[in-house]
């Protein structure tokens, strides 16, 4: 099966603040991140703040430029595309945002929001337009009578559905869901998760599902990638990573997740997440890792196979 999205060694720096009179300090938010998304697959990205997960989402859509990477999307070399080709390719890749309040223009009606998408790629013009708009609202479970309303008339959950309809309007093959359910109350979150799961089945869309909530990611994703300070810690099938983590960070993350059923054996992490401005040498997680060895400081542990379809970036096999 050929991948729809293939990313090799994605790196990203941001300039932050100043150093001395003229220098700029650089913060590396992503280091050598590689990932693959297959057609129809959901890849979950989990990590805490500063892990760079949202940056990955924007970089693969080329909404921000990355420093160095080889990215192919549907056979096109993403990094080599000119502005016009990129614009055309955007029909195939879309994004859904976290904040249902900031993601819709308060001045535009739902009709205008959806029409912008259709106009841009000259889809369903003329008489077919009205039918398509109705169909889109139907698809996300909204009453088509809402077309001429503005965002302030909708609740957070309804706005999120409109955001999904906007993404679906251009019939994309791939959607980045950037914390798409994080701002919603739990009962509304369940509605939207179910909708995404259904759409994925009915339309065969691939998702890059970014979230800090492990159980949500486990539920929706085929495979999960765990990030810490801009580096990949572990990749593998969702259930396997969640229930049998191979990397100490994943284990700590899962154990920190508050749970209804059992008081888990909690793995304590020392201290705070280090600043991305001065990450630890070698393994970035070693400063908080309960299993760290002196050798962990020497070199960056490579991602290596760890059983069934899994990879981990840890030099130890004798724990967990």
């Amino acid at each position, binding site marked *: 099966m050929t991948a729809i999205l293939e990313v090799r060694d994605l790196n990203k720096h941001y300039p932050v603040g100043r150093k001395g009179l003229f220098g700029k300090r650089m913060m590396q938010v992503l280091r050598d991140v590689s990932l693959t998304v297959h057609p129809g697959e*959901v890849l979950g990205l989990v990590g*805490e*703040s500063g892990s760079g997960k949202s940056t990955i989402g*924007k970089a693969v*859509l080329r*909404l921000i430029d990355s420093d160095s990477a080889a990215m192919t999307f549907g056979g096109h070399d993403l990094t080599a595309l000119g502005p016009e080709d990129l*614009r*055309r*390719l955007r029909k195939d*890749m*879309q*994004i859904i*945002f*976290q*904040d249902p309040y*900031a*993601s*819709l223009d308060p*001045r535009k*009606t739902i009709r205008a929001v959806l029409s*912008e998408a259709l106009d*841009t790629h000259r889809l369903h013009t003329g008489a077919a337009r009205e039918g398509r708009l109705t169909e889109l609202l139907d698809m996300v479970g909204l009453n088509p009578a809402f*077309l*001429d*309303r*503005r965002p302030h*008339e*909708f609740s957070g*959950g*309804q706005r999120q559905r409109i955001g999904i309809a*906007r993404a679906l309007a251009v019939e994309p093959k791939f959607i980045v869901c950037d914390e798409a359910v994080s701002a919603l109350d*739990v*009962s*509304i*979150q*369940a509605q939207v*998760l*179910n909708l995404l*799961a*259904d759409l994925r089945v009915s339309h065969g869309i691939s998702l890059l599902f970014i979230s800090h*909530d*492990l*159980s949500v990611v*486990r*539920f*929706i994703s085929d495979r999960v990638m765990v990030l810490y300070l801009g580096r990949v810690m572990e990749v593998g099938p*969702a259930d396997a990573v969640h*229930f049998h983590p191979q990397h100490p960070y994943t284990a*700590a*993350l899962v154990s*920190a*997740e*508050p*749970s*209804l*059923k059992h008081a888990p054996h*909690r793995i304590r992490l020392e*201290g*705070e*997440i280090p600043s991305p401005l001065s990450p630890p040498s070698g393994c970035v997680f070693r400063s908080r890792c309960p299993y760290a060895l002196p050798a962990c400081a020497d070199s960056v542990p490579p991602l290596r196979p760890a059983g069934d379809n899994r990879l981990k970036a840890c030099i130890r096999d004798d724990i967990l």
Partner: protein
Amino acid sequence: MTAIPASRFRAPAIPRRMILPGVLLAALIVIPFAAPLITEANPIQISVRERLAPPSWEHWLGQDEFGRDRLARVLHGGQVSLMVAFLSTTLACLVGTLFGLIGAYFRGPFQFLTTRLSDVVLCFPPILLALLVVTLFGPGTVTLVAVLSILYFPAFSRIAFSEALRVSALDFVEASRALGTPSRRIVFGTILPNIAGPVSVQYSLTAAAAITIESGLSFLGLGVVPPAPSWGQMIRGARQFMNQDPLGILIPCVALTLTIYAINFFCDRLRDTLDPKGNGGGKDTTSQPTSDGQGGGAAGDVVAEVRNLRLDIPRPGQPVPVIEDVSLTLRANQCTALVGESGSGKSLSALALMGLLPGAIRQSAGTLTLRRKSGEMVDMGRLTPKQLEDVRGNDVAMIFQEPMTSLNPVHKVGAQMVEAILAHRPMPKAEARAQAIRLLTLVGINEAERRFNGYPHEMSGGMRQRVMIAMALTCEPRLLIADEPTTALDVTIQAEIIELLQKLRTDYADGLSLLFISHNLGVVAEIADRVAVMYSGQVVEEGPAKQILTDPHHPYTRALLESMPSSHEEAHSTRGDRLQAVEGTPPLPGRRPSGCTFRDRCPIALASCALDRPPLFGGSDRHVRCFRAPEATQEAA
């Protein structure tokens, strides 16, 4: 949601508050240009015999020092002033906004150019820059328009730039880029309409300033060239005769001031309309608690009690009930969790117990009682504001959801702790300092001494929340209210804070009671002894945490638990599993349905659920507000 006819939104109506300033401004702009209809007199026709003549039938406002008709001069002078002002403002607005938009959207060198250019022009005091140019090009209307445009375009480019930068960072602009919408369409179709508000406010501000400068320069004799009339010149001319003829200075002064005032008035109203900032939203004013007088008689281990609390937003006509009926009993060394979705009223209930209700909300019924350290139960509604201050922080303390904004950025962390200590316990500063450092160490802050002397912005969110906890504990309160204390934190940090709170409950002083507010049932399961579930302003289920979380009796509690992915570890979306979600959304306070507030989302609702609000059924340990719950059927039987 009630249906609103779509037609209402096709043509946005003009807000009523804009009508008066709009009409006033329009009148003041139109009248000068209607001069030919008002008077036939020639504004530059000299008649030396009639100099300084008082008002007459031919000359309603009299004649000036050259015998020219004053009415005609005021009207024609207005034409010149308004034309110069609006022409230059419009030019400045067009150029400036374009600069700002380009700078903000394309960044890089455009941004540098836009911001630096503005900085440089803003270095020159406006009048002086105008004088500099007049020196070179000589006075005159064209020079004025050119100077004023140059003078004011940086203000527009600045405003447009910062606003466009703000708007560009919003997700809906990112969404347009992700759709592949061409840049031109994003800039003019999406960003421009969203910055139009602030730009139009700047437009009216600038127009007023331009009139001021134009008339000032004319007053100096360096603006509009005579004989063309202008208000500034009229004042200049009439100055020498102010003794004999005060009308001469009054008329142009009033015309000028009135015009500027009309523009300012319009601008103020416009600003308020575009960016409404409610008055009285200050967090320094609180609404005083009241009392039904039902307090007292509580058992010895009760730390605080909320009985039949009802909170309203006063509105003309019908007040909006935010909280309808909340009762809670908090016992010593117990952690009670208040659970619910956003808008359910859980935070307000807690704020009421602190006497910290926002000024806009009134307690219309219910009693709040609290046990003080002396052992006495006090009715919060009967305390004076002074006594309330003494209770807050001393007997009951609170930590909040947002550690990033809950500490004052301009004071050192230590100073903020010390003032909390000194508010209740007068002691030497050094002693207070030692106690603060001890507390910082207790809540697990490394290098407490250094952090004591640091500012909040130097700390991470988790650390700030620890500081908030330390600060809450300074006076050894019996009750700590924690309002979503971990919601803004990462999950590993959240686990640490929960662990800290757990530890404090047993280790600290004589033990601590916790009122823990959260929307996260997982967190609640870890920390709470008792749980109260809130839905739409009511407690719908209350009882021991274990029972409620494993065997919920209210359909809403059940729905909450079922909709969490973490309660279905065996389920996975790819295997066709779906979460059990309740349809619909919680009703707004003013629009709750009759009967049970949950009935229109409830999977087991009966027709009879629409008749009455269900009371809390059940015995002493467990209560549920549902006609179909086991407790209700038992009571009926």
